[in-house]
Structures are given as structure tokens and as C-alpha cells.
């Protein structure tokens, strides 16, 4: 065949006919009522996390013994705690801690789980069987017991916390990715690219990963509340974020101790846990509706 010399002007991605799916998805998400509210709340949480030093009115770890256990006032909107620290500032800084743990833990879990899922789904056979067994064994461990055991060995720290989250969440990603790969590998376009001589890694990158993004994004949004729960739970038990760093869980634990003298402490620490959990859950469900091609909102 003669070499192709004709030139065709290739336009940059034109939104007129082929908008990037991420934009289409975002537009649909914002048209989803619960999705819109959840998206705004999550954006607010992210802003709190990123701009805590500028938003927070006080230093979150500065102790002021004279103003201990103050109720909400104009100076301290959410009052002060047992050491006189400003609760609002601690809540704002706690957002950063919570999201940092949630995001890095979830991403680590995703990386481990998705990689093993692709390996398992493509190799099948004994490798897949061994991974499945490992995954089921991990899932059968009671999470808090497992976490406490790990903390007992390695000591409480941010890194330990992230590692615990990564290992306890990875099996979920492994399951989803592996099953998705099993479905995808029987698709014609995978066979077609095999018949064009594509290697397995090439097929994984060009065909599997783009098809896996949708379910993974939903899973991440659904998992983040659980991870925030784990962080708060471990911090509540004193095994997570260590004082004086602000964490919703440890603040809740402090507030619990003084619930008769100063109930505002427990309420101020509990509300952000509830709000963020609900927001991420709704965001996940909205994303699932939006990204599911079979849903009624299918094509926008």
C-alpha cells in the first residue's frame, strides 16, 4: 500500500461533538439535586482543609488555661475546650487531618487493590485464586481489632493510620477491579486488540483502565466516609492522631469526657464527622447515578 500522504487537519478536542466525559459527568452531577448539595459541601470541606491557616481564627494548639470550657461566644464561635483551645479552629484543622488520612489511605488502597485486581483478572488460575483467598482473609478480620493490633506493634502515627486504611480497604478495590476485568476481557474490543498483536500490559492500559475509572470513582466516594469513620474511631480510642494535633475523633473523645460540664465540645466534634460522612455518601450515590449508563439520566 502506498504511504498515506494526505493530511487531515485534526482539531483539538471539540466540545461540540465530543466533550470530554469528565466534563459531561460533572455537568450531570451538578444537575443531580443531592449531588449538587453534596458537591458543594465536599468543596467546602476541601477548602477548609487547604486553607485552614487562613480560615481558622486561632492557633488550634495554643493553650489558654484562663478561658477553659467556655461556651460559644463572639470571640470563640464554638467555645473553648478543657485546655482553653479554640474549638472552631480545631475543627477546621481537623478537616485537613481527616481528609489527608481519607485521601491518602483510599489512594493507597486503590493502588494496591486495583493493581492486584488487574493482575488477578488477567492471569486467572492459581495467582487469581491466591489473591482471592488473601482478599477474603483480609475482609474477614474485624477492622478495629486488626487496627488496634497494628497500632500496638508499630505505635500510633499518621503513617500507621494510612497503612491500616490502605490494607483494610484494598480488598474492596481488588474485588471490584478483578470482576470488572473478568467482564472486560471477554469483550470484543479486547479480542480485537489481541488480534492486532497488543500485549497484556498494553491492553490493560488502553482498554481496561478507562473502563474501570467509573466504578472506581464511585467506590472512592463511597469509601471516604468509612475511612473518616476509621480515623475518628481510632483517634477516639486514642490510637489514631496523637495530641496535640487536632482530630475530630480525639476531640470527640475529649468532649465525651466532659459531656456534663461542656456538651458543646462533643457536639462540635461530632457534627463535622456526620456532615462529611453524609456528604461523601450522597456524592458517591449521585456519581453512581450519573456514571451508570443504564440509569435514566444516562445520556446528557
Amino acid at each position, binding site marked *: 500500500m502506498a504511504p*498515506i500522504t494526505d493530511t487531515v487537519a485534526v482539531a483539538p478536542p471539540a466540545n461540540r461533538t465530543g466533550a470530554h466525559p469528565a466534563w459531561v459527568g460533572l455537568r450531570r452531577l451538578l444537575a443531580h439535586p443531592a449531588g449538587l448539595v453534596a458537591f458543594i459541601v465536599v468543596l467546602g470541606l476541601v477548602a477548609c482543609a487547604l486553607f485552614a491557616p487562613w480560615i481558622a481564627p486561632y492557633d488550634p494548639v495554643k493553650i489558654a488555661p484562663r478561658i477553659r470550657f467556655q461556651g460559644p461566644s463572639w470571640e470563640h464561635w464554638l467555645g473553648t475546650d478543657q485546655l482553653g483551645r479554640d474549638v472552631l479552629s480545631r475543627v477546621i484543622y481537623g478537616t485537613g487531618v481527616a481528609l489527608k488520612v481519607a485521601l491518602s489511605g483510599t489512594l493507597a488502597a486503590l493502588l494496591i487493590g486495583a493493581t492486584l485486581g488487574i493482575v488477578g483478572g488477567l492471569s486467572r488460575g492459581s495467582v487469581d485464586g491466591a489473591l482471592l483467598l488473601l482478599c477474603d482473609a483480609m475482609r474477614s478480620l474485624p477492622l478495629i481489632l486488626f487496627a488496634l493490633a497494628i497500632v500496638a506493634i508499630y505505635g500510633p502515627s499518621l503513617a500507621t493510620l494510612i497503612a491500616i486504611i490502605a490494607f483494610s480497604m484494598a480488598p474492596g478495590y481488588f474485588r471490584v477491579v478483578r470482576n470488572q476485568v473478568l467482564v472486560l476481557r471477554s469483550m470484543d474490543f479486547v479480542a480485537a486488540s489481541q*488480534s*492486532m498483536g497488543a500485549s497484556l500490559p498494553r491492553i490493560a492500559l488502553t482498554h481496561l483502565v478507562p473502563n474501570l475509572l467509573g466504578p472506581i470513582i464511585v467506590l472512592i466516594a463511597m469509601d471516604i466516609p468509612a475511612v473518616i469513620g476509621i480515623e475518628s474511631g481510632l483517634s477516639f480510642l486514642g490510637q489514631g492522631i496523637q495530641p496535640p494535633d487536632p482530630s475530630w475523633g480525639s476531640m470527640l473523645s475529649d468532649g465525651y469526657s466532659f459531656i456534663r460540664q461542656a456538651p458543646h465540645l462533643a457536639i462540635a466534634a461530632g457534627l463535622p464527622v456526620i456532615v462529611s460522612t453524609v456528604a461523601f455518601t450522597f456524592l458517591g450515590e449521585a456519581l453512581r447515578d450519573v456514571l451508570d449508563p443504564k440509569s435514566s439520566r444516562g445520556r446528557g
Partner: protein
Amino acid sequence: MTAIVDLRDVSITYAGAHGPVPAVRGVTLALERGRILGLVGESGSGKSSLVSAMLALLPKSASVQGRIVLDGRDLYSLGEHERRALRGREMATVSQDPFTALNPVVRIGTQLVEFQHALPNLTKPEKLRRAGAMLERVGIADPATRLNQYPHQLSGGLRQRVAIAGALLVSPKLLIADEPTTALDATTEMEVIELIRDMRGEVDGSIVLVTHDMGVVGRLCDDVAVLYAGELVESGPVDDVLNRPRHPYTRALLACDPARIDTPSRHLPTVPGTVPSPTALPAGCIFAARCQDVMALCHEVKPLLSAAGASRVACLRVSAP
């Protein structure tokens, strides 16, 4: 004339749960440069196995005997790595269903670039430009827009054109089209057949068209090979085979082509009976149980492929009348 594909006494055996299953037996067939071969047979005739064997994409449970020579190289004496290098360089495929053959979440342009992964010394923009030019050649208007679109934005006929463009991009020596029109409606089918006929010049070798539609064979192919229950029963130039079918099975298949029915009828002709299972083959002719012209001898003696006119036929009525 040199043969692009030369199948010599090719047999394919699958390891079944109850012993080996000989799905294809003793097929000898040569495909010359520049010709289109129609591989015809009903379900279970072994045509898909044969095509997979040409691509060296049979499952691990299958074993191939005989030789498959692609442009002078014995496919099964090469290593797995070299065979994979041949796919996408010298062999390309167009699959049956254009609705599933393209990845739904990847842009057409990206997929067409990806099809060219085996071509050396080309940058991504060059590959994209080639893809656009090829889309234009296969009759797609406004290729620049199409490259940015996703498969669901295209109709079935357009998608099959994209798939054909993808296969042609690598200038294959062997293009295998596995029932490329089965999933399309009649009008689109005609267009795709026209397209393959127009594009045959782009293939620096041969095209194998797998089909069970004799009408498609007549419109598109130069040669035809009729498979029945894993054996070649008749092969030859299309004019000869379609006008002077010698094997009763070929005749029966032609009788089933609705386009050849002259008098209107409410009855669609079929070939009575079923294909014998490869694990329980009859002693004599494999078609004897369904044959209209069966002789007593047919149940005992296995007919061999022998020359008859320009064709080769495996029938006792032809070889030993």
C-alpha cells in the same frame, strides 16, 4: 503468483473433558496474493477455529498439526513473541460486531492510534494523521470530528468502517474479516461489502472473509472454500463453485440462499439434519447422513479432495462415479 497463506494438512484438536475433539481435520488450502477468499460453513464447521489458527490465537487447550505458512514463514515454528509481532504488522482483523469491537470509553482517534502500535518510527501526531486520512478513504466524512468522537456517537455502519480503517492502517498482508456484515442491516451490509471491495487495493496481500452467506461470497470473493464439520469439502474460484457446485453440501447451501429463490414461497429452504459431532464422526463421507444423492458406498469410503474442473471437491460422485 505466491501464496500469502498456505495451509498444509492443518488439523486443530481441542482437549475436551471426554478426550480430544478434532474440530478441524486435514485442511489444505492456499491463498494467493491479491485475492479474496470466502470461508464458508455453518456453525460448528470449524471456520472460526481455522481463522484463530491463522492468527495463532487459539486457546491453550487447542493443538495444531500441519503447517500454516504466512508469506514464507511457518507460523507455528515461530516463538510466541514473534507470532505476536506478526499480528498487527502483517495480519489484521475486522470483527463481527462493530458495536462491541470498539472500546466504548475511548475516543475513535485514540483507538486508531493504538491499532498502529506495532508500526515503528511514527509519532503520535503522525499516527493520528494517518488515522484521519484512512477514515476519509473508507468514506467517512469529516474525519477530524470523528476522531474526537466516542463509538456510541457513530452508527453501526460507520463503526464498521472505523474498524476496517483500523485494520487497513497497518497495511496487512493478511486481512481477516470474521462475518463483518452479520450484525448490520441489509443496506449497511451492501455498503460494507462495497467498501471491502474498494479497499482490496489497500491490502498488500489477501483477504479472508468468513461468512455463511453465499450471496456475500458471490459479490465479493475470488475464491471460496466450503467447510463442513471441520473438513474442506469444496474449494475453487467463485465463478466455478457458485455456477457449477459439485459437492452436494455446496448445492444445499446455495439452495438456501434466499436471493437465489425464483418462485415466491412461504417456505425457507434449509439443509435437513445436523452437523455430526467431531467426537462421533461417521466412517465414510461426513456429509452422507444429510446428503440427497447418497450412495451405499458413501457410508463406507471416505472421499478425498480431488480436482474437478478448476475446483477441488471431496465427493465420491465426483471422484468415483
